[in-house]
Structure formats: structure tokens, C-alpha cells
């Protein structure tokens, strides 16, 4: 390892110059300049779809850039392959690390090069000893005899970083390493990363948690719509400024009249699930749209899934229309008037290969079934046609496989599916993710229409501006607690105040 003085000289370990990449119909990256210095932790931020993943895919040799040059150390690469990228010393540590779970830490470290004795048999003593020594060199005191599946997520990430370093990585890309970590885990991970940085390690740190970017990074590069908006020292910038750079000013807002009525539909009291949320008390009125926001891992996601029955709910009582809501499975939730829109519609919301018709009527099939279990196709078609018109779903026919529709129209199909169950309460998780601006407006109109019909809506989202436009009330969740409430029309409801509330909790610790 180099001494600290040498490191302080600003030698860029990575230089990406004028990198552009176009996909059919989309300019994913335009003239991107990005560099990382030795011994630096460089943050890379931007909204979903801004181009972070494309840039990293190019760096990893997975995608080939249309234009631009990449220099790693002193070597210049025009078109890299993943193999070349790894040989050049670039390692990628994903959010969910791929490890040989049923094998020990030591074996994971030395896999493929296990030390052997004179007889050619694996020398387990040396395996464990060598693994231990290597880890100790990095200051990582893991039990090498433990199976990887027994490690915590933070330890698995640290092990992955260590493995990358043993493989002579010079630059390590960390992709959302803290997404499923508790604060204590984050602290341990961060002190490990910092110690490696002090020894000359270089990192690219991709994260949506802006306050963590400020905590761990030296510099941060902001990407918006495929362009670099700026590279700043974190000392010279603050969260609101960063957000403005990420989001831009050109956001078109959807505005609506409140349809909130007096009657309370949903009541949560004393809801608590260990490790995720606690002390949740909330009332939701007929026709009300409530925004629930917070950092990733604040518990909002689990609360939504818990309400619908996708995850354990913990303790506490929920009532809908004054009746206790006891559903533990999604189908029971539908029947008791609660519908849920998952964030990842491709994996959980839709059966992509099947037709629009089938996707829309899955939850209500048992109501369409006549004698001997046959589906009443006529009635089914009537329902589907009605929603296609109402929600303005652009599809050639009811039989079109959903996979072939555009993102926005797919999302509308999920809405239609939920609407068939005639819900009283709708829980939406990032409903506008991955859809274009026009489809976004359509989706807000649909949500608005449903609220007008008296449906109470909870939107779990990190898109604060969108929430401000559409919600009657925004509740901020922090480390599993509801910490602050903003009402529409009050002076409090500004992006800065909401952001401060979102960031607030973690900084207090």
C-alpha cells in the first residue's frame, strides 16, 4: 500500500470522458465526464432512470459506449469486456451480494484457490488461517468458520468488498449498500469503508440516501436525464441544493381539489412490527389522499406490505369502516376492501405473458365464475372494456399480452385490476416509477377519480413534489415512526420543510 502522502497527490484512478450511449429511441447518456481519484469515495446520485446504471454498466464492460474514452490507472480502454474490466481492477458490489451461502466465510474467500497439502488434499487448517490473516489485514474480524448465510447483511457486504480487494480491485463500485441495513449496521459498514479509504482504496458510492452520501463521500456527481449536472465536494453543498440538482426545476405539477370527506374509513392504532415500525396511529377519511414518505428503510414500505398481507404485520389494530381488519393474505385484503399496488409491477403486479383481460380480472375471477367453474366470458369482457375506456388504456385489444404495453399503460392495467375489487382503501407504492411524464399525469387523474368516488388512498413515495401536488396530507416516517404531518394549504408544506423532516430523524442519533 502507498503511504498517505503519495495518495494525497490527486491521481485519478478512473477517468470517463465524453461518454455517450444511445438505445433505440432513447439517449441514455450524453457527454458524461466522470472521474474518481485514488483514496476517494465518490458519490453518484440521480433519480431512477437518470443514467447511473447505464454509466456503471459501461464501466463494468457490460454495455459498449457509442462515444467516449475510459482510462483506468494509466491504461486506456475503448471497448471493455466484463473480463477486462475486472482485470483492470474494477469490482462491483451489488445490493444483494452473490455468495456461496452454504459454505463458510473462509471457503468463500479462497474458493478456486484452496491451499493444499503435499497429498493434494485441501488443508483446512491453512484455509482458515489464511482467510483469517487476509481479513485481519483489512481489519475485519469475521469468524471464518461461520457459514455465510449466518452472517448479517452488513457483514456479507463487507465480505464482498474484502473479496474484491483480495482480487486486486483498485476501484470498487458500491450499489446501494445500505438499502436493507439498520443504522448500527450502517455505522459498522461505513467505518470499514473509511478504514479502507485511509489505506488508499477508491470507491464509487451509488445511493438514494442523500444524507449518507454526505456522511461518507468526499465528492458527489449528480446525473439527471443522462447528463452530468455537476460534480461537487460534499463540503461545498447541502441536501436541498443537491435535491434541486437531481430533480431540476422543470417539474410539472398535478393539482387537484380536495375530495376529503368527514367519514373515517381506515383507522390504524398502535401498529408495531419489531425492526420495521412502531407506534403507528393514523386515521384516513373517505376520499382522502395521504402521502407517506421517508428515506428508504424508514419502514413505510413494510407498513404498506404489512397492511396488504404480503409481510407479517406485527401487533396493533386496524379497522376499516369500524370493523376490525384481520386479513392476513392478499385475497382476504381484497375481500375486506383493501387493495395494494406494488412498486415492482413486473415482478408482483402483473403476469406479463398473459393478456390484459386476464390480468385485470384475476382478483375477481371467483365472482365471475358460474356453474362448474367456468368463467363468464361475456361479463368478464364487459368489465375489462369498461376499465380500458375509463382509464384510457392504450392497447390494441383485450387479448394483448401485458408485456407488450408501454410502462404507463402497464401501470394502468394494475390500477384496473385493483379497481375491479371495488376497494375502500388503496395503498400505492411508488405508483409513478418508470413511467413517462404524460402517463404520470394520467395516473394522477386516475387516483384523483378514485378519490372522488370515495376511495381513501395512501401513496408511499419518495417523490415529494408529486406528493405535494396530489395529496391532502403528507406524513413523514422516520426510523419506523410517524414523525411529522403536513396538511395541504398550510404554510409548513414546502419541499424544504418536508425534506428536513425526512432527513431529521437520522441526524439526531
Amino acid at each position: 500500500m502507498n503511504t498517505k502522502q503519495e495518495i494525497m497527490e490527486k491521481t485519478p484512478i478512473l477517468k470517463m470522458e465524453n461518454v455517450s450511449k444511445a438505445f433505440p429511441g432513447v439517449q441514455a447518456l450524453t457527454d458524461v465526464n466522470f472521474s474518481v481519484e485514488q483514496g476517494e469515495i465518490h458519490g453518484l446520485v440521480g433519480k431512477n432512470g437518470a443514467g447511473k446504471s447505464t454509466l456503471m454498466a459501461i464501466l463494468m464492460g457490460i454495455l459498449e459506449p457509442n462515444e467516449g474514452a475510459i482510462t483506468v490507472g494509466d491504461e486506456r480502454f475503448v471497448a471493455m469486456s466484463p473480463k477486462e474490466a475486472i482485470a483492470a481492477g474494477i469490482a462491483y458490489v451489488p445490493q444483494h451480494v452473490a455468495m456461496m451461502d452454504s459454505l463458510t466465510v473462509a471457503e468463500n474467500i479462497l474458493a478456486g484457490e484452496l491451499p493444499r497439502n503435499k497429498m493434494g488434499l485441501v488443508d483446512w487448517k491453512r484455509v482458515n488461517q489464511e482467510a483469517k490473516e487476509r481479513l485481519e489485514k483489512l481489519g475485519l474480524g469475521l469468524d471464518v468458520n461461520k457459514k455465510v448465510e449466518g452472517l448479517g447483511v452488513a457483514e456479507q457486504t463487507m465480505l464482498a468488498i474484502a473479496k474484491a480487494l483480495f482480487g486486486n480491485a483498485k476501484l470498487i463500485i458500491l450499489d446501494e449498500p445500505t438499502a436493507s441495513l439498520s443504522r448500527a449496521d450502517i455505522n459498522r459498514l461505513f467505518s470499514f469503508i473509511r478504514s479502507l479509504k485511509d489505506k488508499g482504496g477508491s470507491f464509487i458510492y451509488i445511493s438514494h440516501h442523500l444524507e449518507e452520501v454526505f456522511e461518507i463521500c468526499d465528492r458527489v456527481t449528480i446525473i439527471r436525464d443522462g447528463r452530468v449536472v455537476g460534480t461537487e465536494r460534499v463540503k461545498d453543498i447541502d441536501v436541498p441544493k443537491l435535491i434541486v440538482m437531481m430533480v431540476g426545476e422543470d417539474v410539472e405539477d398535478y393539482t387537484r381539489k380536495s375530495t376529503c370527506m368527514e367519514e373515517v374509513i381506515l383507522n390504524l392504532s398502535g401498529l408495531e412490527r419489531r425492526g420495521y415500525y412502531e407506534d403507528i396511529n393514523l386515521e384516513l377519511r373517505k376520499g382522502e389522499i395521504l402521502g407517506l414518505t421517508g428515506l428508504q428503510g424508514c419502514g413505510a414500505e413494510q407498513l404498506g406490505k404489512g397492511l396488504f398481507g404480503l409481510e407479517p404485520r406485527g401487533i396493533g389494530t386496524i379497522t376499516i369502516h369500524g370493523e376490525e381488519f384481520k386479513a392476513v393474505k392478499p385475497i382476504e385484503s381484497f375481500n375486506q376492501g383493501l387493495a395494494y399496488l406494488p412498486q415492482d409491477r413486473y415482478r408482483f403486479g402483473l403476469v406479463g405473458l398473459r393478456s390484459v383481460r386476464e390480468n385485470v380480472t384475476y382478483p375477481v375471477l371467483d365472482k365471475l365464475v358460474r356453474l362448474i367453474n367456468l368463467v363468464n366470458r361475456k361479463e368478464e369482457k364487459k368489465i375489462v372494456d369498461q376499465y380500458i375506456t375509463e382509464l384510457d388504456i392504450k392497447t390494441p385489444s383485450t387479448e394483448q399480452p401485458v408485456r407488450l404495453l408501454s410502462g404507463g399503460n402497464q401501470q394502468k392495467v394494475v390500477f384496473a385490476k385493483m379497481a375491479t375489487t371495488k376497494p375502500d382503501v388503496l395503498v400505492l407504492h411508488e405508483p409513478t416509477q418508470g413511467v413517462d411524464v404524460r402517463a404520470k399525469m394520467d395516473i394522477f387523474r386516475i387516483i384523483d377519480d378514485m378519490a372522488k368516488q370515495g376511495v381513501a388512498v395512501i401513496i408511499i413515495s419518495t417523490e415529494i413534489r408529486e406528493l405535494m401536488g396530489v395529496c391532502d396530507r403528507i406524513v413523514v416516517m422516520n426510523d419506523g415512526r410517524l414523525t411529522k404531518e403536513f396538511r395541504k394549504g398550510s404554510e409548513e408544506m414546502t419541499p424544504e420543510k418536508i425534506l428536513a423532516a425526512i432527513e431529521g430523524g437520522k441526524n439526531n442519533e
Partner: protein
Amino acid sequence: MKEKTSKLLGILFDNLIWLLVAAGLVIFSSLSKSFRAPNNLISLLYRTSALGLLVLGQSFTMITGNFDLSSESGLGLTAMVAALLMATVENGGLGLELSPFLAIPVMFGVGALIGLVNGFLITRLRMNNLIVTIAMQMILRGLVYIISPGATASFFPKAFNWLGGGSLYKIPLERGFVNIPVATVFVILIFVIAHIITRYTQFGRNMYATGSNVVAAKDAGIDTDKIIRWVYLIDGLCMALAGLLAAGRIDSATPRTGSGMTFPVQAASVIGGISMAGGRGNMIGALGGLMLWSILDNGLSIMKVSPFWIETSRGLILLFAVFLDAIKVRRMHNRSLIESLLHTTIGLKDKTVVKD
């Protein structure tokens, strides 16, 4: 304190198969005099030696995360090929009356070929291992019927029968003697060798790495496809050995030799702790699974339990084994969840966690 009990429980869980084997031995011995006779005990593995070799081959493929359902037919084919080459015309052979020292290498050649074809189809052509080996089971069984005269071929040279039916040692007793079959010793020996291979060689560890997580194994520079091809080749050789043991023990081969063994093979491996998901379990455990299977088979039939009940009890044991596997996985997940919760700062009362 709690940590200790949990660790102890873990060790108990990992070695449960041997507790079951011991329990089976004790129960049947106390119930039946003929079961506990030394000659019966020593020949428990003698009767299931062919099954044992198939369990071994299957365990190898399962550790890498693959299945082999073709082995029972591979056993049948290799046995029939050898029988046809060695037996006289009047005993159902082709009349070549080949020496066993030529016939046995031919068997291994056939077994190796089966393994190579399996491995080729699965790794080079990326075909699903389950379906490939089911297809191979049918194809090979069909081949046995095609090449056989449709009848039994029997009476082989003594040297051929030595491994499967021979006796290694006779210990004289007051009345009669205890006979130590070659097959019993051979099966134990080969399982020990297999254990050494899987635990102590680079190749064996690469098998586990492949089954545990193919992507991570490839990242570590392991040629997983090559490992899988080797494992199927070894599996094919195991079929030939099983054919040698099966044909040698009863001094004959029929077109149906080996048929119906697929599910016992699966069952014994899973009971022995080899995980269906790959990357988990060891060969000593698999030997335990084989022994438990032998004890139940032998014990129940000695006690004159109806064969229908024997079949039922086999099914129950298999269910039990899968049940244990499921608990193991759940227990593991719960433990790592609790460990990660110990680090969090909020909440204390989630019922879903506290109950454990």
C-alpha cells in the same frame, strides 16, 4: 447459555440421521431375534450395496445442484451388457463367454458413456437436468429390453460375482460362522473415499461451490460446467459399479434389473441430508441415509410386516426427511433475522419473531 443450547441443537440437527440409525438398530434388535443376529446385521448393507452406489452418484450430482433420475436404467443397462457378454447361449447370453476381466471394463465404458451424454446435454446444450435424466431413464431402459433376449441372463464366472456376492472373511463362531460380504466393506470404503473427495479435494469443494451459488462460483474462477460434466461422468461410473454389484449378488441380470430404484435413491440421499437445492450435505450423512433405508427394509420384512406397509413407511420417512430439511432452513433464517434485529434500535414486540 441460550447461545450454547442453540449451538447444541444445531449439532444435534446436523447429525440427526445417526440418531435415527441408532434408534432403528436398537428398536428392531430388541423386537426381533433374527434381526439382531450378527449375520443379518453385517449384511444389511450387502443387500442394498447397489442402491448405495446409486445414492453416491446421485449425491454427487445433487451437491452441484443437479439431479440424476437415469441411474436405475444405467444400472440395468450395464448389468445386461455384461451378462450378455459373459453368459453361455443356453443361459441367455450371446455365446461370447467373455472373461469378466474384459466384460467389466466394457461395463465401465457404457457407464462412462451414459455420464458423458448426460453431462453434454446438460452443460453444452443447456437442457434441463431433470428432464434430460428422465428421458435417459426411459431411453436406457428401452435399450435394455432391445438388447436382451427378453429373458434372464444368468450364471456368470466366479470372479465377476466376487464384488457383489462374494465373501471376504468368515469368522467362526460356536455354531456356524459370521460371513463378512465383500459388498458391505466395499460400500463403506467407497463412501469414505467419496467423503474424502468431497471434503478434502479442490474438485470436491468446487462441487459445493457450484451447487451453493453458480454465479459466485463462476466469479471465483471455477469452471462450473466442467465440474458438472465430471460429476455426471463419476455418476455414470457409479451406475456401472452398481450394475456389477447387483448382477454379481444374484448371479443374473434381467431386463428389469434396477427398475423402481429411482425414488429410493432420491429418498436415501435426502434422508441423509443431501439438500435438493444443492451445496449442502455430506457423504457420511448420505451413507447414514442408506443405512437407515436398509434397516427399515430389512427390519420390517423380518418382522413380517406387509409389503404395503413397508412401502407406506418408506413414504413417511421421506416426508419426515423433507420436513426436517424445511425446519432446518426456517430455523436458519430465523436465527439470522434475530441476529440482525439485535442490532436495530426500534420496536420490541413483534410476535412473529418473539415466539422462537
